[in-house]
């Protein structure tokens, strides 16, 4: 193994991971926002909207991401819309992520006990108040664990943007490989950088999970039955 292949070309790797971080974070944030709207539309009173939202989710979940990307990058210019690779790639990746996040959010909202939603209605809350006070605060404990997986997937799929000349990590790796003919060194380095990035994101999700479930978890730990059986653990926590 020749480490100099990596150390000599570090600016390209750095540029690559920075571009990967930019497009994937944009896709994660944008995708989540679209997904949230999709999840709300899927609970709408209007049948047509509900069907449109489920078609969106089903189609995106059942086609390969690379095809979606090609439609945006190669197809849209024929419709008179010419997007730079980075923009087309970010939009396609956002839509792809939104289909998966959308299902997760819908499920998480449905998992919040119905009675609590009904109680809010019975008190005279509007739907948006119910959403804000009852549904959203309680959906995270159902949504975050599967969202961590989808987020990792989104980062990994961003490597496909290299096929439409977005200069992200995989693309830069191919460049360095072409210059050095050292595929092992180059792609181990690329793999390592992806791994560090996704591991960091997973860690953030674990932190968020702990934080957003905390009031309830604390209540569980303080309950009499927990005090009886979890004394050892509680001692360590204190």
């Amino acid at each position, binding site marked *: 193994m020749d480490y100099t292949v990596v150390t000599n070309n570090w600016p390209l790797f750095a540029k690559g991971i920075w571009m990967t971080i930019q497009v994937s974070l944009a896709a994660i944030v944008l995708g989540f926002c679209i997904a949230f709207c999709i999840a709300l539309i899927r609970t709408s009173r209007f049948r047509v909207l509900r069907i449109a939202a489920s078609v969106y989710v089903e189609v995106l979940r059942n086609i390969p991401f690379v095809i979606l990307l090609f439609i945006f990058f190669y197809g849209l210019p024929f419709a008179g819309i010419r997007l730079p690779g980075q923009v087309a790639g970010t939009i396609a990746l956002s839509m792809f992520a939104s289909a998966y996040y959308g299902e997760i959010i819908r499920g998480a909202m449905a998992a919040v006990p119905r*009675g*609590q939603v*009904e*109680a*809010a209605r019975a008190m005279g809350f509007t739907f948006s108040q119910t959403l804000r006070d009852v549904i959203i605060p309680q959906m995270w404990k159902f949504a975050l664990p599967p969202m961590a997986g989808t987020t990792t997937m989104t980062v990994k799929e961003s490597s496909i943007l290299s096929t439409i000349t977005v200069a992200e990590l995989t693309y830069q790796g191919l460049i360095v490989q072409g210059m050095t003919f050292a595929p092992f060194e180059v792609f181990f380095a690329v793999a390592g950088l992806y791994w560090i990035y996704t591991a960091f994101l997973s860690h953030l999700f674990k932190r968020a999970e702990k934080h957003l479930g905390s009031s*309830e978890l604390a209540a569980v730990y303080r309950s009499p039955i927990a005090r009886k059986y979890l004394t050892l653990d509680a001692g360590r926590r204190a």
Partner: protein
Amino acid sequence: MKAPILTIDNLVKSYGPTRVLNGVSLEVRSGDVVGIIGRSGCGKSSLLRCINGLEKIDDGSVNLRGEFIGRVPQEQGRWRYQSERELTQFRARIGFVFQQFNLWANKTALDNVALPLVRVQKKSWAEARQSAADMLTKLGLGTKTGSYPSELSGGQQQRVSIARALVMKPELMLLDEPTSALDPELVREVLAVLQDLVADGMTMICVTHEMGFIRNFGNHLIFMDKGKIVEAGPPKDVMSAPKTEQLQSLLGMMAH
């Protein structure tokens, strides 16, 4: 005789092909305590849920102090359904207590009671929390304000949920089997709270199997069967002299 505050006229409600309410009419006056009994599936819970617009009415009407809830008559015998947003103002005036308490698990007892004041009555948090604390203290939960629902017993949770309804100063309380999910020794603490409400002159419609409570504190008892009111009258009369076989068998089952 006082004018009724709630008038239900020929109410009909179906879930798909199943008709759960088949022409129910009822008048409730201020200070009335109405008990509703009947077998499960007779429509008693649906009746309560139609009164505050949680369920859409198919025919007939519900009228609270001259205002129609859910379904409003228009010209030429046509009816208009109210939107969820229109219904919120009526729900804010009607207290609802569920069998399963349905407290918000992510809020403390205090905030469960204070939140509706903030959101629906647009009070400040400070003012709402003060009223909530006073109400919880009144119901004997002064030391539990900081507890989450999961830390409370069933009886305490139900008292918090009654406080949550009462703090809104409702014109009418609907109670859907408020003691049915409780262990026998916890039923008493909830009934004690309800008795205080009766003493305060609160108008209540209560679906319950607590015959003793209705006999001693109710002034009207309704027996429902297959979506209809079969027997009605002063609780003592209805209980001591059931006219129908269905009520006789139900009372017989509850006695044993």
